């Protein structure tokens, strides 16, 4: 009991998230033992399918720590995919220049939204709501039809499997040996995650972000540049959105208006499940990673189960969200008492 008292609320929320993931995964191992849930690839697929979301949830966590929110991320992902597809397929551009342009687009998007939020003090929700409509609209303006990406270099990036032979192979019914594998997108996502983690925990800028989110007034009085910090956070987030969009495009190889609808909500849910407070000041990108993994595990459960409606994913996420929000408010109350 003594030990637990030493752990503060933030760490405790994170531990709960990680434990929940481990328990869920372990439960999957028991329930779907005969169906091959124990294959390392099932775990790796969580990263392969969610590489884009991991990056975007990291950006969202950062924004939420400042006490803000960004609901334009899903639309920016769609716009990024569409711009990539359009530039490479219709305009015949190379994959590298196309990538550079979309990354710049993300930064500019973040810059504009960040300026409106930090300097003109407009509600982040309203600014990014406008951003959401704008980006989705622009996507449709570029093309209403789906554009398939066939650029050779892009497909090479998308398709280059990295076999993890050290994890061992499994032989399937057809007698084919399958090695575990990941795609380069997974590596990019993990690098981003570690980068943001280091930025938040070990730099002055990172500590300023927490200070701004914790209490904007006292941050101001401490002489911290609140406005610039906020602006930079939205700029970095904009960059991460377009990078996440690029990873998303590597997975789907297409640009389409309807893509990544509701992505922003998945990112917010992952961050909240990972222990980020909507009120700001508290959050951890690794928590958000586990938030994403929990969502992925629930989805995997449902496909392995095979007869349940996939809408149960949403219902389970809703229950988890409620659980974590109640937990958070309990911690907030406990904090007040001290």
């Amino acid at each position: 009991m003594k030990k637990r008292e030493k752990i503060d609320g933030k760490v405790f929320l994170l531990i709960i998230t990680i434990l929940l993931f481990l328990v869920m995964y372990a439960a999957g191992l028991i329930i779907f033992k005969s169906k091959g849930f124990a294959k390392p690839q099932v775990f790796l697929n969580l990263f392969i399918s969610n590489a884009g979301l991991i990056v975007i949830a990291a950006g969202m966590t950062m924004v939420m720590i400042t006490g803000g929110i960004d609901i334009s991320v899903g639309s920016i992902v769609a716009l990024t995919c569409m711009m990539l597809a359009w530039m490479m397929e219709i305009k015949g551009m190379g994959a590298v220049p196309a990538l550079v342009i979309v990354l710049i687009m993300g930064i500019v998007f973040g810059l504009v939204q960040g300026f409106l939020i930090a300097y003109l003090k407009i509600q982040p929700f309203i600014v990014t709501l406008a951003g959401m409509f704008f980006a989705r609209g622009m996507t449709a303006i570029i093309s209403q039809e789906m554009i398939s990406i066939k650029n050779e270099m892009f497909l090479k990036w998308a398709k280059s499997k990295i076999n993890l032979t050290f994890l061992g192979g499994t032989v399937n019914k057809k007698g084919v040996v399958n090695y575990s594998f990941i795609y380069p997108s997974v590596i990019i996502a993990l690098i981003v995650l570690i980068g943001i983690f280091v930025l938040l925990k070990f730099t002055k800028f990172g500590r300023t972000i927490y200070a701004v989110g914790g209490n904007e007034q006292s941050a101001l009085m401490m002489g911290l540049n609140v406005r610039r910090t906020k602006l930079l956070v939205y700029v970095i987030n904009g960059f991460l959105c377009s990078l996440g969009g690029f990873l998303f495009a590597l997975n789907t190889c297409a640009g389409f208006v309807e893509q990544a609808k509701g992505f922003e909500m998945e990112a917010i849910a992952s961050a909240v499940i990972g222990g980020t407070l909507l009120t700001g000041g508290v959050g951890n990108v690794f928590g958000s990673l586990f938030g994403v993994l929990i969502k992925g595990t629930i989805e995997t459960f449902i496909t392995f189960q095979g007869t349940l409606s996939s809408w149960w994913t949403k219902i389970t996420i809703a229950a988890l969200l409620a659980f974590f929000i109640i937990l958070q408010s309990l911690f907030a109350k406990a904090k007040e008492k001290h």
Partner: protein
Amino acid sequence: MKKRVLSFLTAAVMTTAMILSGCSGSQTAATTAAPAATETKAETTEAAKTEAATTTAAPAEKKEIVVGFSQVGAESDWRTANTESMKSTFTEANGYKLIFDDAQQKQENQLKAVRNFIQQDVDYIVIAPVTETGWDTVLQEAKDAGIPVIIVDRMINVSDDSLYTAWVGSNFLQEGYDAVAWLDDYLKKNNKADSDINIVTLQGTIGSSAQIGRTNGVEEKMKDHPKWKMLERQTGEFTQAKGQEVMESFLKTYKDINVVIAENDNMAFGAIDAIKAAGKTCGPKGDIIIISFDAVSAAFDSMIAGDMNVSVECNPLHGPRVAEIIQKLEKGEKVDKIAYVKEGVFPADTAAAEKPKRQY
């Protein structure tokens, strides 16, 4: 060992409890259960490996064919009929085990489902794709694992055709031709062949094969009819609500619409509601001709009620055709890359007679 199993079970029960109730009191249980859980994780991996090895050693014992089916969603009656056809074909009684996944209209969900099918070591993967593109990587993974993929309904667009074994579905372009041919006949019968005809189209979800095929089919054949004019095309996303909304705006913009082409029945129902609400009439005895696609059961009801003129069939009963292909593949026979299902045109005057014969 017993203890471990026990703690494991507690862990499982706790998870369900946590998921279902979302209660905050479970923290202690979770803390104690988790170390045991992680320990056993390694163990089960080992166990699963040996088990996998034994099952591969004796494949002849199990005749059950496992089929993973990733469905678009449940957006229309047609889709539901399609799902039902699969479910009723791939039953345990027929020697199959079906793993069904609803993608909720999202391609990224389908990619996840297909990846999970591969890990579950299914014998065949059947996909009703949400989109035509973006299948290269995941189908390559299926190919690497040696699992044949059968595409149903919408066609896919991949760089390498060998990524899928066969495609089963409708000839959407032909459906478009059929619709124009019917309209031509109908106008001639009603002595309107020489009058100007104003048409509006409620398109399906932009980019889907059905939308592309039907739009192009109609457009191509309309070139033979200079008196016909396409006023506007707009998407109703295959839903009744959106169909109604778009039709309402069409009725406000254009005063002289003669024909509505709805690229599925659900949008046609929405359009009919919008027309009635605007105080106009439609159907064989009305002012506006309603041409629809799919010919689901409710469309026959609508035709019998005198609201709809014709529905061009889009046969959703893909199950038997897919099963036919799987049986051939099981025997090691070659299969055709493209397999169309049979389809017809059902005008209102035959609706009452046809309705009892319909399966969906």
